[in-house]
């Protein structure tokens, strides 16, 4: 298993990944509160980007509604906690199936009826929007007034109830991102992974080669949705408040997918690099504008948009394939 995971990975890649991991593990010791929140945000987007990449990057299914799975995860766990005192880790046992079921439902409808490409993307948006308005009117989760988790000062980190210092969330997300990277590598090197790539490249050819296209697309959606919902649970317990307008908004879905696209679609390290670039860029802009004393809403986002424009115009494949060649980490093609 381990041998298969590592097969084709150069020593150099391993060393660099190891070094990065050590730096990230040590980071909270040196980082201030502000930098720590930025790092949490980066890992959050890296993890979700990795989950989204399973659908788009591996199986070629463009989902523009991943906020749905984040929101379902967040709301399921938070509502169970608020109403029944169910801890987040048990909540996760409900959140993952709920999100996976939603994914399976969308996938079932779409793939049965051959809804593909742009249509599929719009269908995913439609369901996320549907959930946004629906949760706005759902009394059990307090509708548009928002669902709040009880907040109190904790003397120690309560890992079991996810109450405590941001560093705890940081390490949870770091672990999740690392596991997601390894998991995606494993998936990509498995039978399922090869089937996904075949479907992504040419669905008809894959079907005629005997691949059960429907089944493997469904697997991609279900895994991706379930993984994403975990980030939702963390989101709920980190921010302690949930508003349908924020959680399910189309802009959240777009935020999620920018990282992997900028980093490099279908690559394993792309989502992580993309999260670092975009969140880093966004926070740097905030800092620079603060230093310059510019306080006009929107200025930062304009710069952000322009930078995005430049990146995609210059590097259509994403940053990672380009950078990988630069630092001599060309992966051997299997």
């Amino acid at each position, binding site marked *: 298993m381990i041998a298969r995971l590592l097969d084709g990975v150069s020593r150099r890649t391993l060393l660099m990944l190891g070094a990065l991991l050590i730096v990230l593990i040590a980071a909270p010791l040196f980082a201030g509160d502000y930098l720590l929140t930025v790092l949490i945000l980066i890992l959050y987007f890296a993890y979700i980007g990795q989950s989204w990449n399973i659908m*788009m990057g591996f199986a070629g299914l*463009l989902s523009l509604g991943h906020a749905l799975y984040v929101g379902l995860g967040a709301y399921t766990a938070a509502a169970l906690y608020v109403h029944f005192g169910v801890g987040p880790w048990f909540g996760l046992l409900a959140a993952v199936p709920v999100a996976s079921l939603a994914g399976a439902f969308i996938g079932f*409808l*779409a793939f049965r*009826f*051959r*809804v593909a*490409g*742009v*249509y599929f993307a*719009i*269908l995913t*948006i*439609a*369901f996320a*929007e*549907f959930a946004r*308005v*629906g949760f*706005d*009117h759902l009394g059990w989760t307090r509708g*548009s007034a928002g669902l709040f988790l009880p907040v109190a000062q904790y003397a120690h980190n309560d890992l079991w109830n996810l109450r405590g210092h941001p560093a705890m969330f940081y390490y949870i997300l770091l672990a999740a991102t690392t596991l997601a990277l390894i998991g995606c590598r494993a998936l990509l090197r498995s039978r399922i992974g090869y089937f996904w790539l075949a479907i992504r490249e040419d669905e008809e050819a894959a079907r005629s080669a005997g691949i059960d296209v429907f089944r493997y697309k469904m697997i991609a959606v279900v895994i991706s949705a379930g993984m994403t919902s975990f980030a939702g649970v963390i989101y709920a317990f980190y921010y302690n408040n949930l508003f349908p307008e924020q959680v399910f908004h*189309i*802009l959240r879905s*777009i935020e999620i997918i*920018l990282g992997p*696209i*900028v980093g490099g*679609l279908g690559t394993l390290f792309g989502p992580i690099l993309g999260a670092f670039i975009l969140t880093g860029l966004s926070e740097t802009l905030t800092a620079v504008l603060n230093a310059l004393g510019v306080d*006009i*809403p*929107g*200025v930062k*986002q*304009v710069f*952000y*948009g*322009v930078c*995005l*424009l430049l990146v*995609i*115009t210059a590097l*259509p494949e994403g940053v990672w394939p380009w950078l990988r060649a630069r630092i001599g980490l060309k992966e051997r093609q299997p």
Partner: protein
Amino acid sequence: MPLDLYLNVAVGGILTGLVYGLMALGLSVIFGVVRVVNFAHGEMMTIAMYIAITLFTAFHLDPMVMLVPVAAVLFAFGYVLQTRLINPFITRPDTSQFLLLVAVAIIIVNVLLIAFGPDARSVQTTYAFDSFQVGPLIVDATKVYAGVATFIVAAALFAFFRFTLIGKAIRACADNYTGALVVGLDVKHLYALTFGIGTACVGAAGVMMVMIVDVTPTLGPAYTLLAFVIVITGGLGSMLGALAGGVLIGLTEAMAGLVFSPSAKSMFSFAVLVLVLLFRPQGILGKRAA
């Protein structure tokens, strides 16, 4: 509730739906020919809306007078955008194009936010509260004017695509890209024209919408989504379908707002979209893809 009320709301919804249809028509034309999904469509409408509002506050120009000039400005915007920015992306994958237009959308929203601030603005015409009485129906004059103007613009567009040489050339590009190149059509120029026509449509729709809704810079994404819903409901690439989809969605929203709650209305238009995607993926008036 009396039947009158339902009828009144229904007519209002249909008329608003026509303006929606014009907006969606722009998206449909762009997608049908250039094959680019304009993810900044609603944002382009907000540009037109703010031009209209600025001119109205400065010179008290009637929105109906501004219709053509604003559409012309948006045409130029679309033309330049296509030639400068989008053309190199024509052969790139969908996700690349999508990202490009998302970036454009982000820039538009926030430039408007910097220029005009986050507060809602509106246009109060002298006839804002006029209405026509037809039998038991009381219809807003503004919506009637907007509906009629939509019909004129749409008719002009149909005529353009059917009878003029350029219109035919554009349809040729849509039907067969390589073929159009082979017979010597300037495809890049025609694509830019098409994109311009699409943005001009959404510009005209925007000028009419300022009389119906309050405008904020962040209105864009919601209208982009609405345009998608309408175009897919009506049938991608079908011009009549876009108008029909607009009317259907306008009607659905109005009735949902009346029967349930105005804040839940978009849920019902999305429900319509889901039903259409599932049972008639080519849209109400679309042709089934081969």
